[in-house]
């Protein structure tokens, strides 16, 4: 199965890869030469760890640090607001949108 293009790594030093299309939990992807089954949905452009990352490590995308890990992150895990924070100004999101209309 040709799945080596489902994830893009923008720079060789990066510790994240990006989804080149929206992927569903259960799909197989290739990370660091290993076949990994996605444990969660990964939407277009979202980030996934391509190695084990320790709390406090810089997350590097396109060769540039984009913030620090707030907890240990395993290879194949989604990287977003829950485990990555800015080294400058905190990120604001609308907190209750998941509950609206339910």
């Amino acid at each position: 199965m040709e799945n080596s293009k489902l994830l893009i790594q923008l720079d060789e030093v990066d510790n994240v890869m990006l989804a080149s299309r929206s992927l569903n939990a259960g799909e197989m992807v290739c990370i660091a030469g290993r076949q990994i089954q996605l444990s969660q949905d990964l939407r277009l452009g979202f980030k996934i760890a391509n190695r084990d990352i320790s709390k406090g490590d810089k997350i590097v995308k396109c060769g540039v640090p984009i913030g620090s890990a707030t907890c240990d992150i395993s290879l194949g895990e989604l990287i977003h607001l829950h485990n990555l924070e800015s080294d400058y100004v905190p990120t604001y999101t609308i907190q209750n949108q998941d509950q609206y209309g339910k």
Partner: protein
Amino acid sequence: MESREWSGYLRKDGSKGIRNVVLVAYLVECAHHVCTKIASAFEDSTVQVIGFGGCYPNSHANKVMKQLCTHANVGGVLLVSLGCESFDRYGLATVVEESGRPVEILVIQEVGGTRKAIESGQEWVHRTQTDLQNTPRVQMAKRDLIIGAICGGSDATSGISGNPAVGRVFDHLVEQDAVAIFEETGEMIGFEDHLADRAKTPGLAEELRKCMQKAASYYTIMGHASFAPGNADGGLSTIEEKSLGAYSKSGRSKITGLLKPGDKPRQGGLYLLDVVPDGEPRFGFPNINDNAEIAELMACGSHIILFITGRGSVVGSPISPVVKICANPETYARMEEDMDVNAGSIISGESSLDDVAAEILESIVKTAGGQSTASEALGHQEFVLLYKSFEPSGPGCLP
């Protein structure tokens, strides 16, 4: 990417425009409705409304209004005043008159109220529009253009496809000796060293560093970065990650200068627009939305605005056509009518960065030649101008 020419509008002050707009400008919010009604009588997009809503004087707003009312794409200006606001209507009218453009001041309180002001304003616009049909035409090429770039409604695709493609367009424009302007310093946070390294002079490098420190400090005091919940929904986690995308639209050229809103570049090259006010925060967020930034890019003379979006922005502008470059193939499929260029094709593997850069350049030339952009065809004309305070630019900022 060969050199192409088209026919533009020659103004008496020597500037060359790609549209022939009559502006109806309110000088306080109280005159806004009258302006909207005046413009509503004209179905085509050549009559547009801009203005400043505040009743108290502000030198930034004054400077931006002067630059917009004498913009190369503008042929004539009707200034609509309630009558008691602080805006220096005579100073503004003098600047417009000295530029050789027809200008009229309409004071609602003097002319006898809403209805009479609307009738009188429509008559003036109608007459001026007829006169502007005789505006002399002039050959224009890419070197005559000032192109601004903004990213809005960004997501994780913006920095992979749309912004780097615009970076290549900017490299080409700078080679042609055109002016390319990128913004916004609040979205360059994390890239201070990269920007300074690209400065043409050590003096400019120092100014770029100071301007980035100011942006980081300003947004820290505001407690909120230039980051919207939609950015996070689109996969961006931090301001640095958003900056990475925003920075990539600047291309690889050396940086020629650092502008403040209303500074007009006098020679070709790549410029950064500093949108963050000087001094202690006084009037709130530097730019409350994308249209506030578009207004400032226009005030620096931008003929056309390149607008890169991942989530799907729909906005336009009253003076400078907005070319919408959609970075996200899923968004493009959903909102194609609002978009001019599908940069998402880079991600879906159908085209390269160079293919999309060539397509954007083609869109610039066609737009400059008179073809409507998607937002123009849909009637978008959003405009925002708010209070700000700036000190004059330092000596290292401009060549």
